[in-house]
C-alpha cells in the first residue's frame, strides 16, 4: 500500500471520529423518541460558529471554544425539547418532520443573515503545527479533533450502558409509561437526551472548526452525513454510529483522493441510497 494512501486513511479515520460523535447524538434521540432531528447538521454548524465567535472575541482557540460550544448547544437542545419537540412528538409525522426542518431553516438562515454567506475559517496554526509519526504527517488540529471525538463517543456509550442515568434513559426509550410508573420522569430523561445530543454536536462543531470551512450551509452536508452514519450503524446504536462514522470518514477521504474532491459527497450519498435498497437495518442493526 502506498504511503499516501495510509496518510489518507488516517485522515479519514480522524474526521470519521468527529462524524461518529455528532451522529451518536442523532441516533440517541432517534432511538429514544423516534424523532429524527432534521436540524442536527445545523446544530454542528452552530457549534462551529460558537468556536469562531469565541476566537474572534477573545482570541482563544478550541480549548476554550469547545467546552463553551458544548454548553451553548446543550442549552439549546433543552430549549428545543421543551419548546418544540415535546409537543410535536405526539403529533402526526408531517408535524414532526416539518418542525425540525423549520428549525433547521431558522438556524441556518439566521446565521446566514448575521454572518453572511462568506466562507470563514480559524487561523491554520491555532492548534500548533503538524506531527510526524513514522513519516506520517498529521495536523495537530485534526489529531486533537479525532482523538477527543473518539473518547467522548466511547464515553457516551459507557454513560448509556453503565450508569444509572443511562439505564433510566433506556427505560424511557423502551416504554415511557412503564418508566414513569417506576418513578422515572420521561420528560426529564428526554430533555437530558436532547442536551447530550445537542452538546455532542456543539463539541463536534467546535472541534472541526479548526480545519473545516465555516459557512452557514455546511449543516446541510453534515446533516446528510449524520443520516448516512445512523442508517449505516442502525438507529439507536452508539457503537454502530462509531463504526459507521469511521467507515464513512475513510470512504469519503479515499474517494476524494482516488476519484476527485468534488465526488466525495456524491459517493457518500450514493452509498446511503444503495444501503436503503439493500440493507435498511444498517450494518449491524436489527430493524
Amino acid at each position, binding site marked *: 500500500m502506498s504511503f499516501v494512501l495510509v496518510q489518507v486513511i488516517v485522515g479519514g479515520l480522524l474526521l470519521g471520529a468527529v462524524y461518529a460523535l455528532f451522529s451518536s447524538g442523532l441516533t440517541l434521540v432517534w432511538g429514544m423518541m423516534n424523532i429524527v432531528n432534521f436540524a442536527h447538521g445545523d446544530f454542528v454548524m452552530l457549534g462551529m460558529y460558537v468556536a469562531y465567535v469565541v476566537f474572534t472575541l477573545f482570541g482563544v482557540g478550541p480549548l476554550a471554544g469547545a467546552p463553551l460550544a458544548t454548553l451553548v448547544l446543550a442549552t439549546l437542545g433543552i430549549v428545543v425539547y421543551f419548546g418544540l419537540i415535546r409537543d410535536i412528538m405526539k403529533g402526526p409525522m408531517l408535524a414532526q418532520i416539518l418542525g425540525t426542518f423549520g428549525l433547521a*431553516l*431558522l438556524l441556518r*438562515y439566521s446565521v446566514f443573515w448575521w454572518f453572511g454567506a462568506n466562507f470563514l475559517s480559524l487561523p491554520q496554526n491555532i492548534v500548533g503545527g503538524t506531527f510526524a509519526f513514522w513519516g506520517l504527517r498529521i495536523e495537530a488540529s485534526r489529531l486533537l479533533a479525532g482523538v477527543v471525538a473518539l473518547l467522548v463517543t466511547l464515553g457516551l456509550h459507557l454513560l448509556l450502558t453503565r450508569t444509572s442515568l443511562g439505564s433510566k434513559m433506556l427505560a424511557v426509550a423502551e416504554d415511557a409509561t412503564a418508566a414513569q410508573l417506576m418513578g422515572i420522569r420521561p420528560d426529564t430523561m428526554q430533555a437530558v437526551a436532547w442536551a447530550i445530543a445537542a452538546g455532542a454536536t456543539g463539541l463536534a462543531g467546535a472541534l472541526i472548526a479548526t480545519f473545516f470551512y465555516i459557512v452557514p450551509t455546511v449543516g446541510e452536508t453534515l446533516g446528510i452525513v449524520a443520516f448516512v452514519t445512523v442508517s449505516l450503524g442502525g438507529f439507536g446504536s452508539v457503537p454502530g454510529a462509531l463504526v459507521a462514522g469511521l467507515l464513512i470518514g475513510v470512504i469519503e477521504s479515499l474517494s476524494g483522493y482516488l476519484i476527485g474532491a468534488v465526488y466525495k459527497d456524491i459517493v457518500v450519498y450514493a452509498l446511503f441510497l444503495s444501503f436503503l435498497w439493500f440493507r435498511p437495518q444498517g450494518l449491524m442493526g436489527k430493524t
Partner: protein
Amino acid sequence: MRRYLWPCVVLALVIAYPLVLSTPFQQRLGALVLLYAIAASAWNVVGGYAGQVSVGHVVFFGCGAYAAMGAYTHFALSPLVGIPAGIVLAVAIAAIVGVPTLRLSGHYFSMATIAVAELVRLVVTNTDYLGAAVGLSGPTVPRNMFDLSFISALPYYYLFLAVLSITLLITWAMTNSRMGYYLRAIKDSERAARSLGAPTSRTKLYAFMLSAGLTSVAGALYAMLVGFVDPESGLGILISVKILIMAALGGAGLLFGPLVGAAILVPLEEISNSLLGGKGAGLTFVVYGAIILLIARFQPGGILTLVKRLWDRRGKPEKAVVAAGAGHAP
C-alpha cells in the same frame, strides 16, 4: 345555486387579474403564484394525501426544467418536447427512491429524498453536457409559437392557470378513486389499512410517482418562464423548501391548501426581495423557517383547516365561540 356563487367569483377574479393589474411586475407575480401553486399541489399528492414528507421534490422540478431546456439546447426542439421526457425521468427517479424507502418508516423516506436531491444537484453541477454550474438556456428569440418564449408574462399566466386546473382535476379524481380511499385509510392508520388488505406500500409509491410527474411539469414551465435553468434555480434545496412550506401553510392534504399557501408566500417573497434586495434573501428563509416551525407546533393542518374550524363554529351557540377564547364574531 349559492354553493357555486363564491367559486365562480374567485375564478372570475383569477381570470381577470392580469388584465386589471397589468404592470409587468404584477403579471409576472401572478404567473409565479400559479406556478408555485402547481408545484405545491403536486407535492400535496404525496406529502399531504399520502402523508409522506418529501424534502427533495426539487429533483423532479429539475428533471422537468433540464429536460425542457435540454430539448432546445441539444436538439433544437421546442422546450415543450422536453416535458414528456422530464416526466419519464422524474417518475423513474421517484420509483428508485420510493420502492425501498416507502416500506420503511416515514423518516427514511424524508432522508432519502434529501439525499437524492443533493446527489443529483452535485452530479449535474459536474456534468458538462448539462451545462455544469452555468446551466442551460432556452430560446432567446422565439422561432415560432411552440418555443413558448414570450416577453410578457401574460401568456404564461393563462398557460399556468390551465395546467393548474388540470393538476387540481387529477388530484380531485385521485381522491375520489379507489386510490384515494386507500390513501385516507393509510393516513388514519397504516397498520390497520394493511391488515384490511390495502396495498399500502404500492399506493404510497403510486402517489409519489404521480406527484413526481406533476412536479416535473411545473419545473419545465418554470424554466420556460425564466428562460434558463442552472443547478441553483433548478435543483437547489430551497425550491423544495418553498414547495413544501406553501402546501403545509395552506393545508396539506386539502385540495386548495397549496393554492392558499402559494397566494400568501409568493407575493411575500417577491415584495420582500424587491424591498430588501439581496440582503432579504437570508431573511426570507428565516421567516420561512419560523412559519414552518409554528405550523408544525400549533396548527399542523394549515390555514385552511383553521379557517374551516372557525367557519363550522360560526352557526353554533354563543357559548361555543366564547369557549374557544377567540375574538371571532359570528
